[in-house]
Structure formats: C-alpha cells, structure tokens
C-alpha cells in the first residue's frame, strides 16, 4: 500500500537566494525519513513542494513513478500535519477529522465511525464533540495527526509537529508516532531541527544545510560516521581535534592514531571527531586499544544524569567528556587542576573531512 518517492534535481530560489539546490532523495515504500537541519536550511520548502504548495523551478518528484509536480495539492492524496496544526476553529474535533472523508463523499454514519477510529488511534475518541479551542497543545497535535491519517493517505508529511510541546510530552509523542507509523506503514517524511528527535524516530535521516542534503543514512550511521564536519557538529555533541598526515598514518600530538575499521587517513584536510561520551579516563594501566590524549582538568559541571568534564589538552585545545553519575563514578571523579590521561578506543576513532561535502 505504501509508495516510494523519488526526488530529482529539485531546485527552488527566492530571488537571488537559493532555498533548495538540486536536491535528490529516494524514499522507500513505508520508510520513516526525517529531514533534519537548522532553521532556514530548506526543510519546510522541500515538504511544501511535496505537498504542492510551493512550485520548484526545476526538478521531478515521482510517487511510484507517477510525476506529481504538475498535480494541484488537492489531487495529490498526501496527508500532512502542519507545524501549527492548522485545525479548523469553526469545526468540532470530530468534524475536523471527518472533513477529509466528507470531501471524499463518505456518508455521515461511516464518516463518524472512521473519524472515531482515527481518534482512537491517538486516544482522543472521547473528545469528538469538543471545540478546538478547548484542547491542550498535545491534544491538538493528536487531532491534527488523526485528521492527516483518517483518509489513509499513502504518504504522510509532518513539519515539526512536536515543536510546540513541552519536553516530556514531546518525547512521549515521539514514541507514539513511531508506533503509529509501524502500525499503519505509510511512507512518512518528517521534518525537525531536533537531532535527538530525528535519531529516535527515523529509519533514515537526511541532514540538510543551506538547501543541500549533506548525508542520508540510518540514525546510527549519521551519529557514528558523519560525512563531514557540519553533520558531526549538528548531530550530537562533538570535539574536533586537528590531525596531521604523516605518510599513510594520521597523527595527533605527534603520535600515530589507531583508526576504527574502514577508516583511512586518505588525503585532504581531516579532523578527529571525539564525542564526549566516547572518552575513557585511563589509569596507570596500559590500554593498548586506546589512543591516549593527555591534558589537565579545567572544570567540572554536574548536570544530573552526567558530569561534564572540560579538559585542556597539552596541545592547547579544550575538549569535553561526559561521565555517568553513579556514586562510585562520582567518588573517582578527577579534580580540577589535576593532570589526566584520556583514552579514545580505536573503534571510536573516526576522522572526518574538514571541508563541507556539498
């Protein structure tokens, strides 16, 4: 039932400004794909082009090999959840959810039944007669979702649907949305600027910046093997350390680095990507599988579930690492001003291109 989407060379400019620059993307049937990028990177523009509200200058978008760019929005049969939900204030919850069915000439009785079914999926079937302005933000979000799926579109688009919710509710809704997607199986394109949300929900993440798609990959690959510095920096916390190329080997602070499998020093300007949680504190015992990094403890910041430790390296950079806050770990915490030897396991030693790919 789900469709594949093929996006080719889609380009959109506003005057001189290039909002999308020959974007290409293949989305598999039933896939949950997230467009992730900072504000202004063109995510909404791409979504609006898919929905038919923005006409690109050039390009092609096919759904199951049907070109859709020339179809008006109301004939595309694509469900969409708007960022501000766009619920009709003059209709009740039930009428809102029933509206797409009304447009499809479904009779009143069946409409009611199916609207109730859709609302049941989001646990709001008891609020069918409510007015929209009587709902909380989270409830509105769910109604918008129910309305977008009630007519069983094969494609569902969502533009930062959770951004207006508080953190707890947002995290709960992320899981619920994911489950709903697993259950209904429609091809989903989801937009967010929240990297954690993207990693939590997606089959694959497409990282965007300045109208380009920089990398499309499953969450784990995006985080563990970012394609360039921008992706590494935008997704998760990162320290970047300069490496020097000596022949075939990459070196840091004069010592050659052991690299993770599949990583090669190669050519070009590279940096060592160090995630704060991947660093170990090495004791006196030798650790042959770790690349050692020496420095001095600069500052400790207690943040509840983790302790953030800033270390100034002998080479001059300051990097951050995280430790859990179990009592035993806390009692072994280094002190400010002490010298410290950090270790980066060779499997976690990843080099990235300094220059942007796009």
């Amino acid at each position, binding site marked *: 039932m789900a469709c594949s989407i093929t996006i080719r060379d889609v380009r959109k400019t506003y005057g001189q400004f290039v909002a999308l620059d020959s974007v290409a993307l293949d989305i598999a049937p039933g896939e949950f794909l997230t467009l992730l990028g900072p504000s202004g990177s063109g995510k909404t523009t791409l979504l609006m082009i898919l*929905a*038919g*509200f923005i006409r690109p200058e050039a390009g092609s978008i096919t759904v199951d090999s049907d070109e859709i760019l020339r179809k*008006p*929005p*109301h*004939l*595309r*049969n*694509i*469900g*969409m959840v*708007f960022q*501000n939900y*766009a*619920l*009709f*204030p*003059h209709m009740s919850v039930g009428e809102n959810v029933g*509206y*797409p069915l009304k*447009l*499809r000439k479904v009779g009143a009785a069946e409409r009611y039944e199916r609207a109730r079914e859709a609302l049941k999926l989001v646990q709001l079937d008891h609020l069918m007669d409510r007015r929209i302005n009587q709902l909380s933000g989270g409830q509105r979000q769910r109604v918008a979702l129910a*309305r977008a799926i009630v*007519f069983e579109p094969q494609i569902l688009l969502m533009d930062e649907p959770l951004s207006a919710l508080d953190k707890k509710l947002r995290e709960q809704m992320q899981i619920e949305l994911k489950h709903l997607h697993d259950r209904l199986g429609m091809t989903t394109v989801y937009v967010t600027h929240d990297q954690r949300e993207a990693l939590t929900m997606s089959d694959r993440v497409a990282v965007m910046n300045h109208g380009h798609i920089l990398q499309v990959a499953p969450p784990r690959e995006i985080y563990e093997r970012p394609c360039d510095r921008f992706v590494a920096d935008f997704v998760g916390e990162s320290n970047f350390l300069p490496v020097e190329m000596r022949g075939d080997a990459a070196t840091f602070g004069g010592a050659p680095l052991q690299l993770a499998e599949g990583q090669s020093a190669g050519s070009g300007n590279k940096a060592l990507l160090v995630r704060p949680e991947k660093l170990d504190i090495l004791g006196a015992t030798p650790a042959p599988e770790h690349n050692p990094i020496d420095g001095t403890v600069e500052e400790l910041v207690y943040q509840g579930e983790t302790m953030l430790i800033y270390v100034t390296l002998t080479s001059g950079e300051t990097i951050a690492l995280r430790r859990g806050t179990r009592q035993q770990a806390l009692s072994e915490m280094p002190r400010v001003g002490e010298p410290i030897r950090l270790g980066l396991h060779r499997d976690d030693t990843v080099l990235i291109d300094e220059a942007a790919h796009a």
Partner: protein
Amino acid sequence: MHDMTAPQGGHALNRKELAADERREKRQILGLSLPAAAIILVLLVIPVGWLFALSFVSNGEIGLANYTRMIEYSAYLSIFSTTILISLFVTLLCIVLGYPVAYLLGQMPPRLATIGLAFVIIPFWTSILVRTYAWLVILQRQGIVNDALIGIGLIDEPLRLAHNLTGTVIGMTHVMLPFLVLPLYATVRNIDGDLMRAANNMGASPARAFRDVFLPLSMPGLIAGSLLVFILCLGFYVTPQILGGGRVIMVSMKIQQNVQTYFDWGAGSALGVVLLLIVFAIFYLVHRLAGLDRIFAR
C-alpha cells in the same frame, strides 16, 4: 505599593486583607472609568432620552399622537419600507463589491496590502458632501458617464442615473464601501493561510476550501461590516437627499422636514425613536442568529 510590614512580620496574608486589596483595585478602576462614563451620559444618554421624551409631545399635549399618525398614514409605511429596502440593497452591493476587495487585500503581502488599504481609506478624508456632488457631476444627464456612453454610440438618449433611486444607490454604496471592507479585512487578515492549505491538502479544491473554511471564518467580519453599513444606511441623509433629487424619501429626510419645515420636534423625534427601535431589533435578531459577542469580541 502594598503593605510591606505584614509579610515581614511573618504571618501569611489572610483572606480579609487580600479581599480588601481587591476592593481597592476595583474602586480605582471604577474611578478611572468615571470621566468616560460621564461623557457618554452627557453626550448620548441625555440627548436620546430627551428625544424620546419629546416624541410623546404633539401640539403641546402629551400622548401617542406622533406614533398613531405613523400607523394611520400609509405614507409613513412606504417611507420606512423604502429606507429599509434601499439599506438592504446597498448593504448587498457593498458585500458583492467589498468582499473581493477585502479578500485580495488579505492575500497580499502586508506592505502591498497597506497601500491597497490606503486606497480604501482615502475617500474617508474627503467630506461626504464633496463626494456626493462629485457623483452628481459624474452621473447627471450631461455627466461623464452619459457623455462617454453616447460618445461610443452605445446609447442615443442619456440614461437617468442621477436624481433618482439609481443615483442614490450608487452614491450610498460608494460612501459605505469602506465600512464593509475595513472590518472584513481585519478578520480576513487574521485567517491563517495554513487552514486553506490544510483543506487543499485533504482534498478540497480551492473553491471548496473557500466555501468550507474561508467563508465561515470570515463571517464575523462580514456580519460586523454589513451591520455597520446597514445601520448607517438607515439614518443616511446627505447622499440620498442630493442624489435622490426628491424622488427618494428616506426616514432621515422626513425627520429633517418635520423639524426644519414644520418645527415639529415631536414628530421628528418619534421617527427617530422608531428608527432606533428597528436598529435594536436588528441587533437582537443578529445576536440570536450569530451571537454578537462572538462577532465583536474578535
């Protein structure tokens, strides 16, 4: 400032103290609104009350003569029905002409819309009298319109556009249009464009989305504007007087005649009171049908 000693003393403020604060605030608000209330009383309530009282005086006697006359003579009935029909028709014309204008302005980017809105408002800066005479110049037998139509050979005889109902309706519509466009525009501007897009997205054609979403959401502005136009029309004097050429008699002219020609304040007042009652009745009707609080609260 609030009394600082109580919290310092360590005891929680009790209900009595907080209630006293609240009463004091209410008194202050009341005090501030007193001048406005006084102005309304002096400028509105007293004169209207005075007119109301006068309407029961006829030839130095107190009674209902001014009102019974309105029932006995059918001329009055026709004046009232003419007034109401013209007002309805002008309101209708204003809706037909003004809705597209407000709609277009609402779709424009804000800066362009401001310029467009200026064109709607500019006529407000010219006196109604000037605008009405301008229409007379345009519509009369040897006016611009007739000259042009004869010039291109569309007609042989000049059309009778002024000094009759046609001229009255054209002139009134022109004067009233901004009163419809402005409230409607204010409402339309605030309709979130995503609502229409959402309707499109769910499968509604642009026309269907307009009918199901835009039109209902613009209703408060449309009703407010129409009500304003209709009520202003009911009491309109200058334009029908000049452009009607004596062939169109509206209530306002009858009042003028009573007061200025016959010095019969009682008769004039009674007409005014009935007009006011009609306005109240219409407000009540609209309120029952659409909820005035909903319309004017936005």
